[in-house]
């Protein structure tokens, strides 16, 4: 997996299978969540947005960690594949974060009666979005893409150290200003018929991320290595 051409060929082979599996997971997850699962006795049907909201919120953090770890690998061992995976993750992670924010806000409207409440989790998610935008902005601003990858890796690592601190401080700020209210997202228990579709969706989201990050990384690799032999061979085959 170390060399870009090998990476390109290998991922080209597995991508169709991953896509199939991903479509399957999301389809069954959606069926289970939207049709099979019973309506919530308090929230009615509006709770069903968790099947998008919760997996995207999980992914938002997960992708950031992947991005920082791949960035670190690229920084230390100068692995090109890790560098492109790190930077390809940023827009996807930002989209998941944005999706989590939008669905959280949609869910919040019937619960809180307003589109936005300074709930600890939503606020943390918003700050996470800022961190992502910083990474994307920095990468776009630096012309030499290898240098930009190093910059992004440093920034992502700094962000990774800061995320727990920010999360804790926001949580603390939230309890201070709103009192110990029970947040709507903390379900004390969840019924199995609701949980299984949720897990299916979470798996589907993970695969979706994997697929999109691979596609982006392949494009990025081709662009960066456009002068190398393997890319020109690839073009000749077409």
């Amino acid at each position: 997996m170390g060399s870009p051409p090998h990476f390109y060929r290998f991922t080209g082979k597995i991508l169709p299978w991953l896509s199939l599996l991903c479509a399957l997971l999301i389809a069954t997850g959606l069926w289970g969540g939207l049709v099979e699962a019973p309506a919530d006795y308090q929230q009615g049907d509006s709770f069903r947005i968790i099947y998008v909201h919760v997996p995207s919120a999980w992914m938002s953090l997960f992708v950031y960690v992947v991005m920082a770890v791949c960035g670190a690998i690229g920084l230390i061992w100068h692995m090109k594949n890790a560098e492109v995976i790190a930077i390809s993750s940023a827009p996807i992670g930002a989209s998941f974060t944005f999706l989590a924010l939008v669905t959280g806000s949609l869910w919040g409207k019937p619960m809180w009666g307003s589109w936005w409440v300074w709930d600890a989790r939503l606020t943390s998610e918003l700050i996470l979005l800022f961190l992502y935008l910083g990474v994307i902005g920095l990468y776009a601003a630096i012309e030499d893409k290898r240098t930009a990858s190093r910059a992004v890796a440093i920034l992502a690592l700094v962000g990774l150290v800061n995320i727990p601190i920010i999360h804790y401080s926001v949580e603390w700020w939230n309890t201070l200003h709103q009192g110990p209210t029970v947040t709507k997202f903390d379900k004390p228990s969840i019924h199995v018929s609701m949980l299984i579709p949720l897990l299916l969706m979470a798996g589907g989201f993970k695969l979706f991320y994997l697929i999109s990050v691979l596609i982006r990384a392949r494009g990025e690799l081709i662009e960066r290595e456009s002068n190398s032999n393997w890319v020109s061979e690839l073009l000749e085959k077409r």
Partner: protein
Amino acid sequence: MLMSGPDQQQRAEPGLTVSGLHCSRDGRDLFKDLSFRLRAGELLVVEGRNGSGKTSLLRILCGIRMQESGSINWDDSPIGELGPLYHQEMAYIGHHDGIKGDLTVAENIQLAKALGKPSGTDLQTILKRLQLSGYNEVLARALSAGQKRRLALSRLLATVSRLWILDEPFTSLDRRGVEICEQLISSHLTHGGMVVMTSHHAMELPGVEITRLRLS
């Protein structure tokens, strides 16, 4: 810390060893499979057109820029691992003079001393050799371009460095300045120093053997 004196003479001194160096910029290869060796008393002049990667090579040798592949060893250890241990034995004069306009000539030299391994040479001697006597208290920004360049060269005298990496050291120097700089280089070489440099000027260094490296 590497001590000077007898200790250093006993040890084998392979100097700088470069092997298989590969550098590219914006996807274009500047040079590939570059290997050479530099020992005590040797001068290497890097030549080539504009954009052939001379400055990139020197910056890689300093450890500022990263190579795509290949190794640079200083006394048999990779320079990346040596870090400050390598830098204290090396002096670099780049395109920029690296002097602060808002500090006086004397303050600039004092700072250069503190950042490197200070030599015993006192301020007056340094200024005299660079023909900057009497400028101690002058702010560096009030100097002419040639004087600034000479002030930058003061780093070579203010610190003890075995390896000098000089990127176009003669830029903006007048004929007298060039002579001063040539004297510095040849006296460094005769004392067992090493120099890697680029230059558009033809140099007059009597008794010095020049190795040339051409980048294309």
